[in-house]
C-alpha cells in the first residue's frame, strides 16, 4: 500500500509540475495568454460544427481542414468588406478627435459653472485636469496603435495555429494528461474535465452569440437613424458586451458623448437624439436580455449577482479588460471544482 501511495504522489507532483510550467509559459511568453484564450474561443465555436461533419461520415482531419478553409475565406471576405469601412470611420474619428475633445471640455466647464456654488468642485479644477489627461491619452493612442497592430499580427497568426491543434489533437492530449492522474483521483478528474469543458463551451458560445446580436442590432439601428461611426460604435458595443453588467453601460458611453458634444447631430433637440440612440441600444440589450440570457446564459452560470460583480472587479485588477471578460467562466469553474470535490469527499448518496 505504501508503494502505491508513493507512486501516486509522484504522479501528482508530475502533474503539478506540468500545470506550473504551463502557467509560467502563459504568463511570461508575450501574447501567449491572449492567443490561448482566443484559440479556446475558436475551438469551442468550431468543435460542434466539426462534430456535425464527423457525424455525417467525414474524416475528422478532413472536416477540420474544410472548416478552416471555409472560415479563412469568410474572414478574408469580412475583412475585405469591413476593414475599409472601419479604417474610413477611424480616420474620420481621428480628424474629429480635437473637436470632440474641445466639446467634452466645454461640457465639463458648463457643468462646473452650473455647480459653481460647490466651492470644492471648483478647487478640483476638473477642466484643466481632464484636458491634460485627454492630451496624454491622444498621444499615447497614436504611439500605441503601431505597437498594438504588431502584437495583433502575432496573435492573429498564433491563435488559429493553436486552435487547429486543439481541434485536431485536443482529445488525444486530454487523454494523455488524464492517463497520468493517480487512480484514486481519476474518476473525479474525468468528471470535472468533462463538466468544465461543457460549461466553458456553452458559456463561450452564448457570450459570442450575445455579442453578435448586440453588435448587429446596434449597427443596423445606428445606420437607420443615420448616426455617424455606426460600425465603430457597434463593434465597441459588441466587445464591451462581453463584460457582464458593466459592459452594456460602457458600450453606450461613446455614442452619448458624441451627442453631448454635438447636440444637433441628429435632430433639433438633444433630447430627441438621446431618445433615438437610447432606443437603438435598448433594443439590442432587450433582445439580449429577453432571448439569449434566459435561454442560454442563466442556465450555464449559476452565480449570485454580487459574486459576479466581485469577481469582475478582481479580474479587472489582475488582468485588466481580459480579466473582466474571463472572470465569470473562471469563477464558475472554480465553483464547479469545489462542489465536485466536496461531493467526492463528503460521499453522501
Amino acid at each position, binding site marked *: 500500500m505504501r508503494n502505491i501511495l508513493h507512486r501516486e504522489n509522484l504522479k501528482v507532483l508530475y502533474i503539478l509540475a506540468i500545470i506550473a510550467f504551463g502557467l509560467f509559459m502563459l504568463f511570461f511568453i508575450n501574447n501567449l495568454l491572449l492567443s490561448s484564450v482566443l484559440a479556446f474561443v475558436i475551438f469551442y465555436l468550431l468543435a460542434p460544427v466539426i462534430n456535425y461533419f464527423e457525424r455525417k461520415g467525414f474524416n475528422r482531419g478532413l472536416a477540420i481542414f474544410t472548416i478552416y478553409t471555409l472560415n479563412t475565406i469568410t474572414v478574408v471576405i469580412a475583412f475585405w468588406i469591413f476593414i475599409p469601412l472601419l479604417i474610413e470611420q477611424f480616420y474620420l474619428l481621428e480628424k474629429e478627435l480635437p473637436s470632440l475633445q474641445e466639446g467634452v471640455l466645454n461640457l465639463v466647464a458648463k457643468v462646473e459653472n452650473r455647480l459653481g456654488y460647490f466651492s470644492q468642485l471648483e478647487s478640483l479644477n476638473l477642466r484643466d485636469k481632464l484636458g491634460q489627461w485627454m492630451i496624454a491619452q491622444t498621444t499615447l493612442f497614436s504611439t500605441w496603435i503601431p505597437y498594438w497592430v504588431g502584437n495583433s499580427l502575432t496573435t492573429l497568426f498564433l491563435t488559429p495555429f493553436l486552435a487547429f491543434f486543439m481541434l485536431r489533437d485536443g482529445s488525444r492530449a486530454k487523454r494523455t494528461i*488524464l*492517463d497520468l492522474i493517480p487512480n484514486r483521483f481519476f*474518476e473525479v478528474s*474525468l468528471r470535472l474535465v468533462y463538466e468544465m469543458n461543457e460549461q466553458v463551451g456553452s458559456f463561450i458560445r452564448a457570450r459570442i452569440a450575445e455579442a453578435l446580436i448586440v453588435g448587429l442590432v446596434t449597427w443596423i439601428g445606428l445606420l437607420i437613424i443615420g448616426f455617424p461611426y455606426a460600425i465603430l460604435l457597434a463593434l465597441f458595443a459588441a466587445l464591451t458586451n462581453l463584460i457582464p453588467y458593466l459592459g452594456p453601460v460602457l458600450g453606450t458611453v461613446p455614442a452619448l458623448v458624441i451627442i453631448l458634444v454635438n447636440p444637433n447631430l441628429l435632430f433639433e433637440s438633444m433630447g430627441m437624439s438621446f431618445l433615438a440612440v437610447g432606443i437603438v441600444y435598448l433594443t439590442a440589450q432587450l433582445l439580449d436580455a429577453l432571448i439569449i440570457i434566459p435561454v442560454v446564459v442563466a442556465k450555464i452560470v449559476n452565480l449570485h449577482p454580487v459574486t459576479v460583480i466581485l469577481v469582475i472587479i478582481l479580474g479587472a485588477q489582475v488582468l485588466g479588460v481580459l480579466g473582466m471578460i474571463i472572470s465569470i467562466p473562471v469563477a464558475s469553474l472554480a465553483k464547479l471544482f469545489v462542489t465536485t470535490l466536496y461531493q467526492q469527499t463528503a460521499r453522501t448518496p
Partner: protein
Amino acid sequence: MIQNLWENVLNKRKKETDIYGFLKQSFLFKDLSSKELEFLTHIVHVRHFQGGEKIFNQGDPGVGMYYILTGTVDIIMHDPSFEVKDDKEEIFITRLEKGDFFGELSLIEEPSYRSASAVAITRCTLIGFFKPDLLQVIQRNPQTGNKISLRLAEILGRRLRETTEKVTELCVELNHFKKDAGNAGTNEKHFTS
C-alpha cells in the same frame, strides 16, 4: 534513444491491438464494426492497479464501468446495519476475472453512487469506459453510440431480471420461514397447554 523511441511506438501499437482485440470480444461492443472499434480504442482508458489497491469505494460518485483485461477483482459491500465502515463488516459479493465487467450502472444513472466497493486482488489492467466517453461517442458517432446503448440496456435489463428473480426467491424463502416459525409457535403452544 532512437531504438527506445521505436520500441515505445511499437509497444503502443501492440497495446492498441490488445485493446482492439479485447473490445471486439466484449459483450458491450460486440456489434461494432472494425472502424467503430478502432475509433473506440482511442476513447477508452487503460488503468493499472496494484494488488490490494481500491478501484472504487462504496458510496463514491460513480462515472462509469471497467472491463478486466488482466488480473482479479473482488466486489465487496459494507453491511448497512453497521454505521462504522470497518473491514470486519465487509460482505464478499463476487470475484471477477479477465473478461468480466463491473460498474455499468454508473454509465446510465444520474447522479450515480457506487453500490459496492471494488478491490484489485492481483495486479490488474482494466479498461475504463465512462459516461463522458459514452456521451462523446454519441455526439461524434451516434450510430456507434446507439449500438453501445442498446447493448447496455440489454445488460441492465438482464441484471434487473436476475435481481427480481433473486428477490422473489428470497420472498418465497422468507414466507416459508415465517410459516415454519408460525407452525413451530403453534406446536409450542399446543405442547405447553
